[in-house]
């Protein structure tokens, strides 16, 4: 191909193409190129037989390699103008695959996949988690080798600090800083711990990492151990994760056999051994000081800080505790460097975050996205929107310590700073999408029931405070709410936040505060109108059929477990309120929106009306 030309056209001059008119096409091209003044930019070459005679005359355009077929002289003016002048290849004239192409979409075309970027989950679904060799084949333990043989603890800490990596367990404390604090504390014996006590309802990020890629946790811990000077490590995993425990144990055994754990790892003179400790599934044991007490064999309860664990942690020795996902980020960070890590995410929230996307979305799963992505993209593009054609109401982030974010804030970018502004937290990554069939007071009640249950009982503000808050919510949802309750709740929430000892109590009121902030009208209608407009709180709900909209299809009558709905075909149906148990089956079934939700007191009125009607019927008879 000659140089100096912008475009090279290879037009076929084989017998077949000449027979079908390629010389005429060539002539037309020459004319047209001259007319447009392109002859210095576009080179025209007549080639030998291309072998694709049936589609002739054919022409290949370089550098793009575009293949035009069955060209006619009359196509040329358009082709020259569009492709060579304006740079828009003419699809109509391009070669088409004769076979029916598979309709299978590719990942880059599907938002669920193309908006994700895998770092912590890079081996997800790719390696056999029970074979250390497969992990090694994917650059496994290369980062450990690098830090053990080539880097000082200070260099590791500098790299991690510069990366901006923040703890992925919930609080978002800078990981490098945590390591630096512990590194500076003198001490012969230090501990490196991994928090696999994933306790948020609806969260399964850490479990999936431990199950799918257990060696990345071990490698992350080796790197952390070198940075702080620890020689002993523990992975605290809840016993409810049997598969994670089994695969981690296998990974530890394999790493020991290869000398990647134990003494003199990779000939570096560095020693580290790691053991698994199974937690009994108490939510509070995700709190670092409580986790350490539990590891010591004591009852899992937090202690006041300071002293911080970096100074006095497990068995009063300097200790660092990081979350599973944090460790999964460390090996690639070390291999590719801090600048690479910062290339995704925002200035203050760098890298990616794994979320367990669940609830009322179409696509439920474990996703990893660059930080800074708007919530709307996560829910509508990755999550595929709301299930069963329902409407979005809120997204719950951060589990029992987090809050709900409403529709009008869906463009909030997912970063530590922006999410906190909304009253929720990024947390460990539980993302529960809530549709309009949910009552937000009940959502808050659900989380408070959880935290009341899980409060360890050590400090009264949390032990008693969460109980009182929960009782108040039960009152409101059962029709005993009184004016002033909202203010009382807000007051009490503030007290529990300010006075509790650990993160559990300090964040437990968040679900209440955020639902009051964005869904105050629901609290008000529960308290003042005794009306749960979502039809969830049974005492505050009456289901009835709107005779105007009812088509008389009978679908509701068929699903009613109480046989409380009756009516003739194609005539409006009616609910016998005395039999109705408010199970919502009819409401969910009706395709015409004929089933309505009224306030609780409507039930009495409807019953009275029905009796009156019955009486009239008897009188007339």
């Amino acid at each position: 191909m000659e140089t100096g030309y912008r475009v090279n056209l290879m037009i076929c001059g084989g017998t077949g193409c000449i027979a079908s008119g390629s010389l005429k096409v060539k002539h037309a091209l020459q004319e047209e190129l001259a007319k447009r003044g392109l002859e210095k930019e576009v080179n025209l070459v007549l080639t030998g037989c291309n072998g694709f005679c049936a589609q002739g005359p054919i022409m290949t355009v370089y550098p793009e390699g575009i293949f035009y077929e069955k060209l006619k002289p009359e196509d040329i003016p358009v082709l020259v103008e569009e492709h060579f002048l304006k740079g828009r290849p003419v699809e109509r004239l391009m070669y088409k695959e004769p076979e029916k192409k598979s309709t299978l979409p590719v990942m880059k075309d599907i938002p669920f996949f193309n908006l994700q970027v895998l770092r912590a989950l890079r081996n997800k679904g790719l390696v056999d988690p029970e074979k250390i060799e497969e992990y090694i084949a994917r650059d496994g333990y290369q980062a450990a080798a690098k830090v053990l043989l080539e880097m000082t603890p200070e260099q590791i800490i500098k790299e991690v600090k510069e990366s901006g990596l923040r703890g992925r367990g919930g609080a978002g404390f800078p990981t490098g800083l945590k390591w630096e604090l512990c590194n500076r504390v003198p001490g012969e014996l230090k501990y490196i711990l991994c928090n696999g006590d994933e306790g948020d309802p609806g969260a399964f990020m850490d479990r999936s990492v431990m199950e799918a890629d257990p060696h990345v946790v071990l490698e992350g811990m080796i790197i952390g151990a070198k940075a702080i000077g620890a020689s002993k490590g523990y992975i605290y995993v809840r016993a409810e994760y049997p598969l994670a425990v089994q695969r981690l144990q296998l990974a530890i055994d394999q790493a020991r056999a290869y000398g990647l754990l134990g003494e003199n790892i990779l000939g570096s003179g560095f020693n580290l051994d790691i053991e698994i400790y199974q937690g009994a599934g108490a939510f509070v044991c995700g709190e670092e000081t409580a986790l350490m007490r539990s590891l010591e064999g004591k009852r899992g309860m937090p202690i006041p800080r300071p002293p911080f664990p970096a100074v006095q942690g497990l068995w009063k020795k300097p200790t660092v505790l990081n979350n599973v996902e944090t460790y999964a980020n460390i090996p690639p960070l070390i291999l590719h460097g801090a600048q690479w890590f910062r290339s995704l995410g925002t200035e203050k929230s760098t890298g990616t975050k794994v979320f367990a996307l669940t609830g009322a979305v179409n696509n439920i799963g474990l996703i990893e996205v660059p930080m800074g992505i708007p919530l709307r993209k996560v829910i509508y593009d990755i999550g595929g929107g709301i299930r069963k054609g329902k409407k979005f109401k809120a997204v719950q982030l951060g589990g029992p310590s987090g809050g709900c974010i409403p529709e009008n804030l869906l463009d909030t970018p997912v970063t530590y700073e922006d999410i906190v502004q909304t009253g929720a937290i990024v947390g460990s990554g539980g993302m529960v999408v809530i549709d309009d069939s949910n009552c937000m007071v009940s959502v808050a009640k659900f989380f408070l029931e959880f935290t009341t249950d899980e409060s360890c009982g050590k400090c009264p503000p949390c032990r008693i405070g969460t109980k009182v808050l929960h009782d108040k919510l039960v009152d409101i949802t059962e029709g005993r709410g009184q004016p002033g309750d909202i203010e009382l709740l807000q007051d009490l929430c503030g007290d529990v936040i300010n006075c509790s000892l650990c993160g559990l109590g300090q964040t437990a009121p968040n679900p209440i505060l955020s639902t009051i902030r964005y869904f105050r009208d629901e609290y008000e209608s529960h308290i003042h109108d005794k009306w749960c407009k979502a039809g969830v709180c049974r005492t505050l709900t009456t289901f009835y059929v709107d005779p105007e909209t009812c088509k008389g299809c009978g679908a509701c009558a068929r699903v009613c477990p109480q046989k409380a709905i009756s009516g003739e075909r194609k005539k409006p149906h009616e609910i016998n309120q005395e039999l109705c148990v408010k199970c919502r089956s009819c409401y969910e079934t009706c395709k015409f929106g004929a089933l309505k939700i009224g306030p609780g007191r409507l039930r009495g009125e409807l019953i009275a009306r029905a009796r009156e009607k019955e009486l009239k019927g008897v009188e007339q008879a």
Partner: protein
Amino acid sequence: MPKLTVDDLKKIKEEYKSTFTLREGGYRAKITVHMGTCGIAAGAREVMNALMDEMAKENIKDVIVTNSGCAGFCSREPMATVEMLNHAPVKYQLLNPEKIRRIFKEHVQGGKVVDEFALVAGSETSY
């Protein structure tokens, strides 16, 4: 087992790369059944058993069958990924023993993607 050195790490890496690139290992296909908790709960074990049964019946030696963790799309489990030599991997969704048997016959043996069970083709971005 002897303790590893850095050179050993490199050796293992080269040796086992073949399980990811197929070509070097002389295999023509790799089938990964995703067996995280979500997959197992949805029936991945039965899918795996059916697949092993097909492999044994046909006496196949040049196809790798392996398991792996959660593929990330939990609501579509059980899932499996079929990667044919020189082709982009194809992820199958909502599987059961009958479906995996058909996929084995038509895709792995016949070279034709079973569109009706397939979710997507290609690999995810890792960066």
